[in-house]
C-alpha cells in the first residue's frame, strides 16, 4: 500500500470541501487509513480554501508536509500556484483552467500570473501538469458547482481504484437529485486523463 498525499486548493464557494470529503471517503473505502484537514481562513466566501487529504497504511498528521505531496488539485489557477514547495519531485498537478481575480487584481493594483508561468512553476517539482476544463465542463452540464467532481474524475484515472468505488461514494455524498449529473461530470473528468 503506497501512501498518497493530496493538496486541494481553491476559492471559497467552489466546492473544494465537498470534493475533499469525497476523496477522503474513497480512500477509506479502498482500505486506507485516512486523514483530512481543511485549512481555510475565516468562514467567508471568496477567500482561499485549501484541503489536505492523506491516504496511507497508517497516517499520523492530518496536515501534509512540504516536499511530499503526490497530487495537487487546483480549483483555480492562481491557487494551484501557491503551493509548489509542497510537491515532491515527480508529482502531478491537475489544474482547473479557470481564473478568479483576487480583489487587488480587480482594482488594477496587482497582476494575475500567466498560465505559462503557473505551469512552469508547478513543473519545477511536478512531472506533469494536466489542465482540466473543470468549470467549463461543469457549466456545460448545467452546474458550475460540479467542478470538484470533474476534477476528481480526472484524478481517479491517475490514482487508481475501481471507477465504481468512486461513483458509489459520489452517489452517497452529493445531493440526491444531482447524482446522475455528477456521475456524468465524473466521467467527463476521466476523459481528460484517460
Amino acid at each position, binding site marked *: 500500500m503506497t501512501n498518497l498525499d493530496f493538496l486541494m486548493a481553491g476559492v471559497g464557494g467552489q466546492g473544494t470541501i465537498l470534493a475533499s470529503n469525497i476523496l477522503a471517503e474513497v480512500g*477509506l473505502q479502498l482500505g486506507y487509513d*485516512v486523514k483530512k484537514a481543511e485549512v481555510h481562513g475565516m468562514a467567508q466566501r*471568496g477567500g482561499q480554501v485549501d484541503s489536505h487529504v492523506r491516504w496511507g497504511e497508517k497516517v499520523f498528521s492530518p496536515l501534509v508536509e512540504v*516536499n511530499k505531496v503526490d497530487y495537487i488539485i487546483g480549483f483555480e489557477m492562481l491557487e494551484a500556484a501557491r503551493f509548489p*514547495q509542497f510537491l515532491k519531485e515527480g508529482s502531478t498537478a491537475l489544474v482547473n483552467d479557470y481564473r478568479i481575480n483576487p*480583489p487587488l487584481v*480587480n482594482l488594477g493594483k496587482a497582476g494575475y500570473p500567466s498560465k505559462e508561468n503557473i505551469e512552469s512553476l508547478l513543473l519545477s517539482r511536478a512531472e506533469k501538469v494536466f489542465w482540466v476544463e473543470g468549470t467549463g465542463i461543469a457549466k456545460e452540464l448545467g452546474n458550475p458547482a460540479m467542478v470538484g467532481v470533474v476534477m476528481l474524475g480526472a484524478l481517479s484515472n491517475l490514482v487508481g481504484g475501481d471507477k465504481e468505488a468512486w461513483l458509489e461514494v459520489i452517489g452517497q455524498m452529493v445531493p440526491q437529485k444531482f447524482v446522475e449529473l455528477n456521475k456524468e461530470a465524473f466521467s467527463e473528468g476521466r476523459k481528460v486523463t484517460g
Partner: protein
Amino acid sequence: MKKLMTGNEAFAYGAYLGGVQVGAAYPGTPSSEILDNFSRYPGIFAEWSPNEKVSLDVAIGAAYAGTRAMSSMKHVGLNVASDSLFYAVYTGVKGGLVIICADDPEMHSSQNEQDNRNYAKFAKCPMLEPSDSEEAKQFVGMALDMSEEFETPVLVRSVTRLSHSSTPVEVSDAGPPPPSEETPFYERDAQRYVMVPANARRRHPLVEERLEKLADYAETIPINYIEPGDDNLGIISAGVNYHYAKEVFPNATFLKLGMVYPLPEKLIRAFADRVKTVVIVEELDPFLEEQLRLMGIQVKGKDIFPMLGEFSPTLVRDCAVKAGLIPAPEAPPEIKVDLERPIRPPMLCPGCGHRALFHVLRENGVLVTGDIGCYTLGSAPPLSAMHTTGCMGASIGVAHGIDKAGVKDDVVAVLGDSTFLHSGIHPLIDVLYNQGNTTTIISDNSATAMTGFQEHPGTGKTVQGQPTTVVDPEKLVRGIGFEKVDICDPYEIDQMEKILQDHLKSGKPSVIISRHPCVLHAKEKHTPPEVDPELCINCGICLDVGCSPLIQEDEHVRIDSLLCNGCGLCVKVCPQEAIIEQ
C-alpha cells in the same frame, strides 16, 4: 464500522453516547459544529445560548440536578464564561459536566492566540486533550465519568486542527445508556451550592484535595502512556502535536499525554529517567515545559519550537533539524518563485448589507468603533471604515470612553445582531445611565453569519428548529430607555445618511438599526446591472465600495455577472449613472 468524522462531529457523538442530556453553547470558530451536530441527536435538549457564560451556567444547572451536561465554545468564549467555571469548580457537580473549548493557534479566525490549558491550572480544573476524532469521541465519555467520580467540571481542549480535521471513528448502532428513570433532583445543600465566603472557604481545601487525587488518578489513567522506542530521544506531546511529532521522530520513545492537567509526576519522572534527552513538542505556551522544569527535569522545548502560531509536521521537522535532533532529510532543490501571487483575503459578499452601511459611514468621515462579525471586514480597504476591534461587545463601551475622553470626532459604535445579543446590552445601559451621547448602529442581517448562520434569540427559531419568541432589538433598546431609535435599510443610502447626521447632531444617546438580511443566508439574487461603456469614464468610484464582481479594465469597469448579486449598490454610487440596472 469506521466512519470519517471531524473532531467536532466526534465530540458531539461522544457527548451523545456519553448520555449528555443538556447541551448549551454560543457559536465560535472552530467550535460551532459541536453543538450543531449534538442538537441533531434524538432525546436530548440543545440550545444556542446568547453567550458563553449563559451556556455554561445552563450546563452547570443541569449538572447540579444530576443530569449529564455539556457546554462548548471557542477559546475566547471561555474568557466570557470564566467566572462560571471558577465557581463550578468550587461547588462541584453531581451529573457529569464537560466543557469543550477549542483554541485557535495561528488565529485562523480569532482575535488572539490564548492557550486555554492555562485555564485548567488557573481554575484548578482537570483537562483532557484528544489528538484525533476517535479520541475526541472517547475522551468526552471519560471526562463525563471523571466529572461524576471527582464531582468536578472537566475541560476538554480542542484546537482548530482537531475540530476541523476528519479522521476515522469507530461507530456502532449502540446508542447512549437509557436515561435514568428517576426524575432529576436538585438537592438543597446551601453549604455546597451557595458560595458566600464562609462556604467558599470550606470548599477551597476540598478543591485542593481533589486536585491531588486527580494527579494520582493521572498516573494510572490509560490515556497517559509511554510508547517505547529508541531511548536516546524521549518526546512528550499531547493533542494534534503528538501526530506531527510521530511523523518527525518515528523511532523515539514517546510519552503521550491525554490528560494535560493535572500531570502525572511519577510517570513523567520515570519517563525522564529512562530517556537520554526529553523534548516537549507543544504549540503556544510552554505549559507542560514549565511544570516539568518545576519538577527539576531538564527538557528542551521552547528553545527549539516557537511560542507563536500553529505547528505542522514541516515546522516540527525544520526545528528538529536546526536543533540537531535529527539529520536534515533529503529534499529537492528549493523553488525560486518569481511570480506575482496576489493574496485573496476574505471579503464582504456581493450584496452584503454591511457594505452599504460602511459606504455611508466612510462618506461621512465618522470614527467607527467596531466589534466582531462579518462586518469587521468593513475595516479592510477599500472601505477602511472601522477603526477599532477588540472582542465581542467592546464597540459601545469603547465609543462611550472615547466620547468621555473629549475626542471631537463623530464616533459611532457598530456591532452585529448576534453580537448585540451576546454582549451589547450592558454597554448600552451604561451609555444611558452615565449620560453618554454615543450613537450605536446595530448592523442587523438577521443571522450569526460569520460562524455559519446559527439561530439566535432574534431569529425566532431554536437550534432544534422550534419556533420561539423573537427578541426584537428595537423593543429591547426602547425598553432600556432609549428614545432616539431608527430603523433603516442601508441600501437606502440617502436615507441612512440623513438618519446618521440627525443622530450625530442630536447630542443624545441613540440607536440605529441598519437592517438588511444576509444575502448568503437569504439566498437573494437579482439580475446583475451592466456598465454602459459610453458613459463610464473609469473614475474608479464604484471600486471604492470593494465589491468583488467590479473589475477595472483599460477603458472602463466591467461587472462579472457570475459573481454579481445584483444588489445595485454600485448603480447608486456611480456619479456618471453609467451602471445600468437590468
